[in-house]
């Protein structure tokens, strides 16, 4: 499932448990600042072999926003 993979990537950078991450979780609440966010995006692009354009970054607030951008919200 895409959520599992995304959660795994976020948890690695945020140093939190995968179980703590839900679609509604806000990245900021996990301590993901701008520098950590670009690391997460890099890992996501690598894992999903996709591109997340810079102009979409400011609209990514929650994990669900990431799933939307990846086009995998319903996976």
């Amino acid at each position, binding site marked *: 499932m895409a959520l599992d993979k995304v959660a795994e990537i976020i948890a690695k950078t945020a140093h939190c448990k995968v179980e703590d991450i839900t679609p509604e979780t806000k990245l900021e609440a996990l301590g993901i600042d701008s*520098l950590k966010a670009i*690391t997460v995006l*890099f890992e996501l*692009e690598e894992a999903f072999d996709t591109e997340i354009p810079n102009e979409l970054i400011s609209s990514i607030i929650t994990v669900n926003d990431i799933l939307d951008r990846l086009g995998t919200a319903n996976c």
Partner: protein
Amino acid sequence: MNRRVVITGLGAVSGLGLNATTFWQELIAGQSAIRPLKLPIENIKISIGALVPEFDPECHFSSDDLTLLDRFSQLAVIAAREAVCDAGLCSGEDSIRQAAAIIGSGCGGKHTDEATYDRLYKQQRSRAHPLTIPKGMPSAAASMVSKHLGIKGPTFALASACASGSHAIIQGCTMIQSGMVDVALVGASDAPFTFGLLKSWEALRVATDDTCRPFCADRSGIVLGEGAGMVVLESEQHAKARSARIYAELAGCGMTSDAGHITRPDITGISSAIINALNYAGIDPDEVDYVNAHGTATQANDIAETAAINQVFGDRAKKLAVSSTKSMHGHALGASSALELIASTLAIYHGIIPPTANFTVADEQCDLDYVPNIAREQEMDVAISNSFAFGGLNSVIAIRKHS
């Protein structure tokens, strides 16, 4: 000189160990850290080096911190922590918060840069790691030292190849003398054991597979090392006010540039730097007891450095003790010059001259007392530390026993 500057804290990470105590014990025991390389790198001819032994970054930093710490920054921060602690200072107190941090490097964050180049050029991947810039930039170690120690005063990096540490220390000294700061954490860090750098040093044909034998007839070149040397400098007034232990006075400094050949040392450039350091300090050549030589063990350096010492000191040259500690900690590029100032400082403080290790027979053009293989107990008043970088950048620091 406007204000006297003293050395109150030392931190040393090198092939000889993770702290200045081990560094000094190994130096005076004449122990060399040069070992066969066991790196996961293929197709390199350089086969020996002086790597920091048993170094596990996770014992020193959180995994979160490590995402931003190139190896050269890791070594810098560890040495900086030791130097500050050794000076009896703590991060968070005003002396450190207001201090300067000038951190030199000969090669910067090469581990980071090369990992990214490997991804892009060799693996043909399309993305660089997003932290490549902040982690690999030449000033990364300065920023990380500032962050980890809580230093908020003037902070920047300085590069002059193998003299980077010496120039950084001089920069800190002059900032204290000017009254800009009371305390400066200064030194350099280098971690050059990467594929690209090893191949580049290999191409220069100055690295040996034997060992580092400065000033010897059978010397055959440099041996690379890695490490970081950090020094806490203070105005004497500041140090005395807090009853700090004073290792030595940083009495003077001399800097010159050859404005000539990019790699061949220039006797006049070297001798002028030594003379400038002595003049700055108001020290007569006859007062000097010990020279911690640049002593790389290349054919060119050791002859030129010996000639320059003879030129400056005349009859006194034969009475000087001259040793190259690179024979033990290897040539850790910019970090070497800081490590060597630490060796010189401890030599003055303890009254022991570290030897030139791996010494066989002196080159016929190298006619000084190189303190072969065995340390020597000798009370000293004045020592100088020589550093001469590729590009013709010469830097000499004179230190004096504090009284």
